[in-house]
């Protein structure tokens, strides 16, 4: 049985999402929560395979739950379900370890499809998110960004960069597959890898930042 965390503050939407999730994953065990604190408590006691997390909640941001989940249950898949489509809201969640995002207002069929894709390891990647990821890694590549190389440098491979660049230009993943002569699956793997590296790099950066703060304290 799939265990799923559902964090959503609007009751109607929570009900609707629950129905939708059950449709995609019949028989799943769903733990519902309307607040960040409750969700974090749940994460401490229950083991989840999938978590659908809203970002704007009454008592904080869903990003905290994403972080908590990544730290305590690395195998769990966090998916951000939000009304915000801009990279300013989404990117921090992706850095924190979210594996894809779903825009709430989309039609049921579309969301269903996306959920399935994500659970199969094919997260979505919009051009603006791709640009944001590219900017993040190119800023890191500059020497002054990591002064003493204390942390293991995470960088994108040439192929990953190529895929990112094409996504940024507006090509769909199947199109990129055709252009690069690769299967849809391989392209999806690249995207997954990009998400993972973004998360790893962000974690290392956060750790280093914490260490630095500790040193100076």
């Amino acid at each position, binding site marked *: 049985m799939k265990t799923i965390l559902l964090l959503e503050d609007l009751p109607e939407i929570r009900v609707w999402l629950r129905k939708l999730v059950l449709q995609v994953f019949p028989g799943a065990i769903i733990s519902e929560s309307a607040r960040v604190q409750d969700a974090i408590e749940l994460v401490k006691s229950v083991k989840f395979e999938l978590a659908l997390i809203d970002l*704007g909640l009454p008592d904080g941001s869903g990003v905290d739950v994403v972080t908590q989940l990544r730290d305590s249950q690395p195998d769990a898949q966090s998916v951000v379900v939000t009304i915000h489509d801009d990279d300013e809201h989404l990117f921090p969640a992706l850095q924190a370890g979210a594996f894809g995002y779903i825009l*709430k*207002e989309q039609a*049921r069929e579309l969301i269903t499809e996306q959920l399935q894709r994500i659970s199969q390891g094919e997260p979505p990647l*919009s*051009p603006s998110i791709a640009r944001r990821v590219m900017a993040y890694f190119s800023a890191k590549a500059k020497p002054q960004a990591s002064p003493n190389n204390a942390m293991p440098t995470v960088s994108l491979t040439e192929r990953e960069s190529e895929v990112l660049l094409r996504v*940024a230009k*507006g*090509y*769909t993943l199947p199109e990129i597959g055709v252009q690069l002569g690769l299967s849809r699956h391989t392209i999806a793997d690249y995207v997954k890898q990009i998400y993972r590296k973004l998360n790893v790099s962000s974690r290392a950066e956060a750790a280093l930042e914490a260490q630095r703060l500790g040193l100076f304290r």
Partner: protein
Amino acid sequence: MILTRPPLRLLHRLALGLGLALGLAAATPQATAQVLTIRSAQVTPATGDVLPPDAPAATVALPDNWSKSRPGYAGLLSYRIDFEPFTSLERGDLLALYIAHVCSNFEVFLNGHLVHGGGRMAEPVTHNCNHPQLVSLPSALIRQGINTLDLRVTGHRLAEVGSQQRDGGLSALVIGPQSELAMQHARRTALQVSAPQAVSATLMLMGGFMFVMGFVNRRESHLAYFGALSVGWALVDARLWLRSLPVSHSVAEFLLCSMLGFITWVAVQFLMRYAGSRERWVDVALPVQCALLPLSLVLAGPTRLHLLASFWYALLALQVLAAAAWHLRREWHRRSVWLMASMLLTVVVAGAIEFAAQWGGTRPLAAHLAELALPVVFVLVGLRLVQQQGRALHHAEQGKARLEQRVRDATAEIERNFRQLSELRVEQVTERERKRIAADLHDDLGAKLLTIVHTSDSERISTLAREALEEMRLSVRGLTGKPVRLADALGDWRAEVVSRLGQASIECEWQAPEDLPQRLSSRAYVQTTRILREATSNIIKHSQASQCAIRCTIGDGDLQFLLQDDGVGISAEVDRRLDQGHGLASMKNRAKQLQGQCLVESGPGQGTVIRLTVPLDRAAEGS
């Protein structure tokens, strides 16, 4: 330096002209044959108003200096001259007696009749020592044959006067036609009286002015000292104006000598301060000396005045000389030092001549010229100082103007910065407010719309709410967004349009230039996104097309889109319906808002062509 040249030349010319004029005035023409010069006289000591008896008399040579012919004598002396008048006087001309120097005062009797009085003969005696005298000899009193001329002269002994010049004495006498002698007298008066008077009046005015100038501005203290020097000198020369002082002879001499201490004080201070130096001991010593001098004169008494005065003169002259040398040494590096050097040299030469005249006991023309040269030099130095002051003032004004300009610039800069800062602040506040509104819209309106989207039973309401949500999101982005790179915008549009058409199984061919450097305002980005979204929706919903070509070009500063499908086209009936749903009409309207246009060409069975033009430069304005 360029500035200094013309005034310097002017000074030159002035000095040259003045010297020339004085030289001319002083040049005494040789006496003509008609003039009788008398070089000896019968002299008797006289008392009271009574003319001396004819008998006991001694012959003296003229000029007669009492200090030599009768040392220690003071009081009255009577000189008698016999002469024969000229026979060849021109008609209407008078006979006159010219006396170049008589000291201190005199009376003239012709054949026993008083024909001239020079002022008071008793204390306080009128001082005529500096004034050449011309006495008319009335024709009525002149006899045929021998005429007798009596001169009663009152004078002082050398020991009681400060200068040889004021010791009792009588120069040679000249008798001749008045017209002839008047010229000689006038020249001599000009040199000894009028010119010094004019110069000392000038000195008085200029000195007073400069004293005030220097006194007001303490940093220019040399001006104050120079002003005092000028005024002091003018006061010494005031004896030319004031022949009959209401004080006794000894008091007048005492005052005159005391003045020289003061003059030395201010002269030395001027020379030092002008060279930009100040010594405390000099500041103290000079006034002390200035007080000591009159004290010593008082202690010595009037009978030893000349001796003491001569000593003081030498001492004071040495001090001034030392100060002058010191000044020149300090200022030697300056290019304009020659001016001050020549002035000081003139002073030194004039002083030397004066001293020589004092020792020699005679006053040649050179001595008179030297005496006049001193105040003239003072005037010239004064002019130079005024010129320097004027130049400094000019520089100060220029500096002030520059400073004012700088202040104006700085103020403008500050105002500009302030404006920028407040603009920035307004921007920040606006930005924050927009973000707050955006957050509110998302959290409140967005949540409600979302609830409608997913809970409504009506598909139409659900769709409308979804569209409203998308609209809201775009509006918020238009409200808060920053300018978007055109290349990024094209990426977003391509991703959306191609994936949507692909989901609807419509084959799409997208052509667009790459690496575009232009930027698009967020408003233009949002509106164009809406137009393209609407157009895509129309193709998906109504065209029944299987293929679609989208071409994007940049030309004439415009962003141009050409969307072409192979669908059924828009019938008049559908067109109306679309317009009712704000489809085509809203697309056109949005394009118009961006100063662009959206043209739809279609006909039944011909597919649809949409031409969208958005001006780039306009679109990039604002945020």
